[in-house]
């Protein structure tokens, strides 16, 4: 017997990272802006996305969405009411989306016909941050009912985000939401990040959000 050390220096999620790189190339070649939406369950990702899809379609943009959940196609049915093509990804127990699931569910879609593709991740503030889906923009959402210190409790997710959305701003006051502290905490974890204060119900903050999307769309990666 001889003992040997074999150097690997290999990413554990190499397979996912390679698939994600391939997807990123496909998105860029097709000219579609892809966003990955991550938050806890109940933050209002689906409501925010419903509003975003509807508002973008009203402005003539071509949009589609993939939505991940452990079970049920409830969210896909809600989002499809916007008229946009939507597909549900059921992970059956897996707590995050992986690049392979995304690739499989894009089958048959002509990416070049799209302006924006939204991927709503499984509601989870931990695991989705490790899995690249090839997106250009990772969006972390936080609702006014969740507590202003969530960014401090889940720094990985907020630190890897490119934009942050505060949701349910219409009920901020009755919830006793401390806006200044929430903004400060997000900035403490991800200095300089763009933050949008929104309400899917009233449409507050949507103008700024849509302007940001348009600006990112026109900016070549």
């Amino acid at each position, binding site marked *: *017997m*001889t*003992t*040997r*050390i*074999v*150097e*690997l*220096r*290999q*990413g*554990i*999620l*190499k*397979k*996912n990272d390679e698939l994600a790189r391939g997807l990123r190339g496909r998105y860029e070649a097709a000219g579609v802006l892809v966003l990955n939406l991550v938050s806890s369950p109940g933050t209002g990702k689906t409501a925010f996305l419903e509003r975003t899809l509807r508002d973008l379609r009203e402005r003539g943009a071509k949009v589609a969405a993939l939505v991940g959940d452990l079970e049920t196609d409830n969210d896909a049915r809600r989002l499809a009411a916007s008229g946009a093509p939507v597909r549900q990804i059921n992970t059956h127990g*897996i*707590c*995050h989306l992986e690049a392979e699931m995304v690739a499989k569910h894009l089958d048959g879609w002509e990416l070049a016909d799209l302006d924006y593709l939204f991927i709503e991740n499984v509601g*989870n503030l*931990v*695991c989705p*941050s*490790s899995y690249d889906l090839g997106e250009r923009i990772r969006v972390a959402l936080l609702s006014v009912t969740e507590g202003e210190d969530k960014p*401090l409790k889940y*720094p*990985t*997710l907020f*630190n*890897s985000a490119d934009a942050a959305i505060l949701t349910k701003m219409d009920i901020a006051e009755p919830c006793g939401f401390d806006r200044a502290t929430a903004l400060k905490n997000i*900035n*403490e*974890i*991800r*200095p*300089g990040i763009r933050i949008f204060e929104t309400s899917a119900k009233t449409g507050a903050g949507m103008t700024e959000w849509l302007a940001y999307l348009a600006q990112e769309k026109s900016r070549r990666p």
Partner: protein
Amino acid sequence: MHELSIVSSIVDSVTTTLEAYPGAQVKEVRLRIGALASVVEDSLQFCYGIATDGTPLEGSKLVVRILPVVMHCERCAQDIEIASLQSFRCPRCDEPVSDLRQGRELEIESIEIDEVEEKV
């Protein structure tokens, strides 16, 4: 929660590597995990025992090295280790820092194996 998926990926990678060393026994698998990688070592160790059962990695030891978060501070013009994951600021000058240089790693660094000597 995704530690089992991570361990399964480790088993796949190491098994592939072992193809070049027929009959070798895995003694140790060494990982480099960034402090911002959202991976809990206890949970990894727990899943490792389960996921390696019946594989060529069975009975091997998992060694995890946690890497601190290193950011680049523009004002100090150098890479610095942040003091806490709750504040992305330079510990020297207190400037907010957003340029991450280390901390999200999820890597298999190396494996230690016992090779069967070739019969002459």
